[in-house]
């Protein structure tokens, strides 16, 4: 089971409309991705809260069809 990088990006942006999302296919196998998500909505949130917001956007795919996602969250620079 695997997911397309574009699909991951669309899902994250559906949950966090202002976010910029960079997806890297780590292993070239469509199954191990890194995502860097930058969103102003993260301001004032802990890393836990930021990552939970991304996981919420991905819903139950996370840990299911999407099994390996290395996740980094950031707040846009002023």
């Amino acid at each position, binding site marked *: 089971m695997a997911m397309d990088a574009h699909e991951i990006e669309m899902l994250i942006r559906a949950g966090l409309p202002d976010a910029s999302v960079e997806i890297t296919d780590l292993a070239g196998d469509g199954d191990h991705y890194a995502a860097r998500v930058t969103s102003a909505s993260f301001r004032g949130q802990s*890393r*836990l809260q930021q990552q939970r917001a991304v*996981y919420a956007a991905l819903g*139950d795919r996370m840990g299911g069809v999407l099994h390996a996602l290395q996740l*980094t969250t950031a707040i846009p620079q002023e």
Partner: protein
Amino acid sequence: MSDDTQVRLASLVEGADVMLFMKGSPLFPQCGFSSRAIAILQHLGTEFESVDVLQDQDVRQGIKAFSDWPTIPQLYVKGEFIGGSDIMMEMYESGELKELLVEKGIVPAA
């Protein structure tokens, strides 16, 4: 999640200062993310306990709801959920994880 599982998970996270829920064992991690979590804890020189979620389906599914976190590994320090391996790595690199362990009296300051 059954009440039994809830009680078991609560006693596991309270049962050690540093508790890692992982896939496999510290010697034989079964996933790259768990392997990275172990490497971080070993670098910090902290003692820790681990639970292999692959050995117990109730724990494997239960811990996700318990922590409100969809992935494994998961790190607890003094009963508090800290995060998964990406958060561990960020906190390791920034020095925050070491600070936290020192603050909690788990590793010496030096």
